[in-house]
């Protein structure tokens, strides 16, 4: 069974990483006095996303549903989060590479092209969806039903198998 203190700790860590992500997404364009600052911010942001993915998977592994072998049920329930997080990580890394590539020589230059603008819009939209789905999943995993055998779980399993 999931301990309340452990869950609180994990949840606060997840929210810390999420808020860092949101902060970098919002204010990274302002903090471009030197290209190194943006580079460090971007690297930490990508690592934070990766950490969040690892944490959410560890939380999955900790559930009774997973330990009972019903991986497909978990994937079925949280596939939105899993797919969005992966997409967001890919978009973030590609945008960061592109932006850093253009800004490395002259950090205060005008770099925008239509392609970069499009990628930027998609990355930021994916970020918002990622926040929403990730937060929802993290909060849902606090449900005690995921950590014990129950009638609900058996019904879910039967529904998924159909």
């Amino acid at each position, binding site marked *: 069974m999931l301990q*309340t203190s452990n869950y609180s700790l994990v*949840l606060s860590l997840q929210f810390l990483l999420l808020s860092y992500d949101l902060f970098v997404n*919002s204010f990274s*364009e302002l903090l471009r006095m030197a290209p190194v600052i943006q580079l460090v911010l971007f690297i930490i942001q990508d690592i934070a996303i990766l950490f969040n993915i690892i944490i959410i998977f560890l939380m999955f592994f900790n559930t009774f549903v997973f330990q009972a072998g019903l991986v497909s049920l978990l994937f079925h329930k949280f596939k939105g989060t899993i797919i969005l997080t992966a997409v967001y990580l890919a978009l973030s890394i590609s945008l960061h590479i592109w932006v850093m590539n253009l800004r490395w020589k002259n950090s205060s230059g*005008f770099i925008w092209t239509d392609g970069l603008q499009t990628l930027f*819009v998609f990355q930021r*939209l994916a970020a*918002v969806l990622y926040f929403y789905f990730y937060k929802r999943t993290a909060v849902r995993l606090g449900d005690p039903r995921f950590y014990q055998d129950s009638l*609900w779980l058996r019904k879910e399993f039967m*529904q998924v198998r159909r």
Partner: protein
Amino acid sequence: MRADSGPPLEEGQAHPPRALPPVPSAIQDDVPLSLPKKKKSRTKSKLATASSEGLAEPVVSKQSESSEPPAAYPKEHPEAPIQRGQKKIRPPPELETSFTEKPSSPSFLRNENGVDVEPPAEGVIPKPRRKAKKTQPAELQYANELGVEDEDIIADEQRILEQHSRFTAPTGISQPVSKVFVEKSRRFHAADRSELIKTTENIDVSMDMKPSWTTQDVALSVNRAFRMIGLFSHGFLAGCAVWNVVVIYVLAGDELSDLSNLLQQYKPLAYPFQSLLYLLLALSTVSAFDRADFAKTSVAIRNFLALEPTALASFLYFAALILSLSQQMTSDRIHLYTPSVNGSLWAAEIEERFLQPWIIVNLVVALLVGLSWLFLSYRPSVDLSEELLFFSGVEENPDKGIQASS
């Protein structure tokens, strides 16, 4: 005399296994007990022969002679010959203790073997001891299993008590059959089995009742905290957007005639405001999605079609977000405005071409954000995801989950 008494002893030691194979324990064990009987029968036979010969006196002497061979034995147990007559009924306590104290393993083994075979009448005496010895390992067995029938144990116990009280002092009785020793906090406590079953049931119940602050409560409190942040960001965003539009229109002058003034004045504000707008829009959109339970697409679409305020607000926020993000390039262009150089970024005619859509987009964003705020503040307590996540019944949840995912 001794030559006479010698053979019977040897005979008594050699013969019994052959004479009584099925019950070896009763005889072999109790060599001193059986010895006098053998002796007796022998004396009887001798008596018979003597009487048949008509010799009265030798009988006495023979008897005295026959009582001699045990004399080697009575060195340890002098009362044995005296109580010979009573022996069948009751052995002297000293004798019994001497037997029980005997550490010899064969006697113990024989006792174990002798349990199956129903002992003959003379086995009445060793029986209680065997029973007592047998129950001890049995008790261990019972202690291991909680689900043992009570009658067996209690009956046994009573029997042992009876027998011991009848024949010996109840010193070596082990009590515990009806008790079970349970390890609690690294100590063993005695507990009745029936009580133990009750207490374990009670523990299960209390375990269900006990935790006051569960993980679900943590999740719920986090959700509510985020809703508070969302409520704040909705209002703040609406105010910011309206203020931004007002500032832009004031700086642009009548009918957007003074665009260069706008660029000069607004230049340091453009990028910070864009960043703040994204932060607040992201928070507001996530909060609005939470309120409308956007993840359950079927519910969200149904609510949107029914013009549910929360669903409408989340849609408007998302549209505002897209519009606002699309102006990132222009915002950066304004941020890099340098009037003195008037370089490639800002040519003379280019100002209006870039600024007019930017101003309109800002106006639209302000309108959308303001409308969403109105929709959401109309019923600020509505939170569909909270209802569905935390207060939905166990039965209805699966169907909705499948519906949403399919």
